[in-house]
């Protein structure tokens, strides 16, 4: 899969970019260790190959396939992290973080604070999710809003191979616990290769496209459709500024507010269920800070209030796409 992508005009996909980042991190710092289900090479270096080659190169002491024991996986990361390692633990899919929530929320997130700064938990939890693959109700949920509601966790979601590379390295090198959320559809999309050595700072949003009429805030798999909406609307003389949040917690208020102060209109879009999602926080803050300058209420786009359905037409209707985002943008300018 990856090789095909690589040969196609030098592009790499997100699997390859993540793999590059992990190789670089392990090479650079012997405290970086990697574990999770199937991640070592005898098990094919992960179910899609993100960790391929690591155990062969760095040994099965540092790279381990684990039992199916997510609490033990995250617990091992926390314990090793406290004593100075930089574990990168994989929870295969985001729905499986539900069996490890105690470790993530009660421990990883809090130990720095509860110890008064004596210990900290420099771990990265890689996980993946996303609709569109027909996997039904238990394999495609987005819980970034949960983690963002937990003080002490950093939540990061990359939108392209190069972004994935630069953000993952920053997470691994960060001294706090990071939840790094990969998208199962983006895994296979080819993109510009990362520049080796690049880091993308956490907590900083990326203004990918400048515009004057509306600010469109997005992250992860919603970045590409947001750019497509901006493209389409530019034909109609509507100038959309697109911001990739990159880090969802702590998110970059300064960049978002500066943009909306300019455009005076905003839309926030994500694939997660809309009610009580990330969009709610961002919309609230924009209203709180810029109320009198706004020309229209901030619009939110997200999946409807339903479990992820299986049947293809339902799944398609469930996933917010270009049309939904476009309609939300148009709503802010009364069209």
């Amino acid at each position, binding site marked *: 899969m990856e090789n095909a992508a690589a040969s196609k005009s030098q592009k790499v996909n997100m699997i390859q970019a993540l793999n590059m980042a992990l190789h670089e991190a392990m090479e650079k710092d012997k405290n970086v260790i990697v574990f999770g289900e199937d991640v070592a090479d005898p098990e094919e270096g992960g179910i899609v190959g993100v960790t391929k080659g690591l155990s062969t190169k760095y040994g099965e002491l540092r790279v381990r396939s684990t039992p199916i024991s997510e609490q033990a996986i995250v617990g091992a990361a926390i314990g090793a992290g406290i004593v100075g390692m930089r574990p990168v633990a994989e929870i295969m899919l985001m729905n499986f973080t539900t069996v490890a929530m105690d470790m993530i929320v009660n421990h990883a997130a809090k130990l720095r604070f509860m110890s008064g700064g004596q210990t900290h938990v420099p771990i990265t939890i890689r996980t993946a999710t996303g609709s569109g693959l027909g996997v039904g*109700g238990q394999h495609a949920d987005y819980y970034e809003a949960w983690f963002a509601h937990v003080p002490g966790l950093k939540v990061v979601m990359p939108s392209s191979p190069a972004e994935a590379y630069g953000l993952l390295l920053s997470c691994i090198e960060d001294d706090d616990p990071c939840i790094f959320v990969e998208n199962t559809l983006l895994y296979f999309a080819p993109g510009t290769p990362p520049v080796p050595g690049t880091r993308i700072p956490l907590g900083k949003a990326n203004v990918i496209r400048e515009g004057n009429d509306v600010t469109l805030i997005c992250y992860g798999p919603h970045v590409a459709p947001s750019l497509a909406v901006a493209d389409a609307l530019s034909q109609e003389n509507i100038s959309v500024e697109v911001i990739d949040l990159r880090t969802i917690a702590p998110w970059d208020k300064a960049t978002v507010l500066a943009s909306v102060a300019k455009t005076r209109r905003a839309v926030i879009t994500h694939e997660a269920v809309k009610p009580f999602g990330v969009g709610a926080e961002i919309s609230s803050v924009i209203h709180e800070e810029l109320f009198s300058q706004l020309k229209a209420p901030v619009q939110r786009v997200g999946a*409807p209030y339903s479990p992820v359905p299986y049947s293809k037409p339902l799944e398609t209707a469930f996933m917010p796409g270009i049309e939904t985002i476009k309609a939300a943008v148009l709503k802010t300018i009364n069209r």
Partner: protein
Amino acid sequence: MGLAHTPDRATLLDIYRKMTLIKQNDEKSRAIILSGKIPMVYYSPRGQEVIPSAISVNLKATDNICTIYRGTHDMLAKGVPLKDLWAELAGKSTGTCKGKGGPMHITHPASGVLVTTGIVGSSLPIANGVALASQIRGDGGVAVAYFGDGASNIGAFHEALNMAAVWKLPVIFVCQNNLYGEHTKYEKTTAAKRVADRADSYQIPGVRVDGNDPLAMYDAAKTAIDRARAGDGPTLIEAMTFRFYGHVFGDADRYMDDGEKKAAMANDPVPRFRQWLIDNGHSSDADLSAMETAVGKEIDEAIEAAIAAPFPDVAELRKDVFAEEIPA
């Protein structure tokens, strides 16, 4: 070792009918996926036919099972109608779950398939609850939790077995040990020689059985089910088996020794049992062939009907979230 229970002729044929149904259904599933006519993520149970077949003949229609993503064999053995099943696999409104659940979440209470789960280990605690209801009502029902060898290392396994043991719940925990969890070998992740040995931690019976031997499997199942029905509590059964088509259909299976798979396939339990039935005078090649043909036809009809059936309306997204419909 002598067997305490042996199935009569009708039961033997019933077990075989279930096995051929599962085997043929699997063959047709893989073919239809490759044809592109019904795309789906598919966890083949091929090679594991015996386990639920020999168990289900000991269950009543009112007994319930909780199974997993790799569970078509468990569902078919328990009696989920082919038409309802296939329509669900195709995501159609006529499916068991109106197309909303899909392959990993087949549910059919009428035939006792209460839960199909995609989360490793989660079938066990839920099966406990089903058994708890039977215990409280005194209705004599039993519940079966199916799961894999990999699931025996997750917390829910431990909590469920302990609670079932303490409360003497009428539940049977059936670990289908196919030697792998996704790409990882049993020994690499499991500190117990046998999953069955873990029963000792809960002072309940634990038996390892050849899950590809219908007679041994029948015996172990009947012993456990009788025991549960009599109010004597749970049993852990570890049924040894093998997956012929890797974790998920389409896997390259590079993590597996080629010989391992070949040997297992050469020892295919379905033709083996077929031959045994003939050799032991329980049936004839002609009779079994007729049965197989009938079963195959039934599957083909179900697939055709599924393809022809309508997709659900998108308004379904607002239904079954709660009892009350979500306002548009």
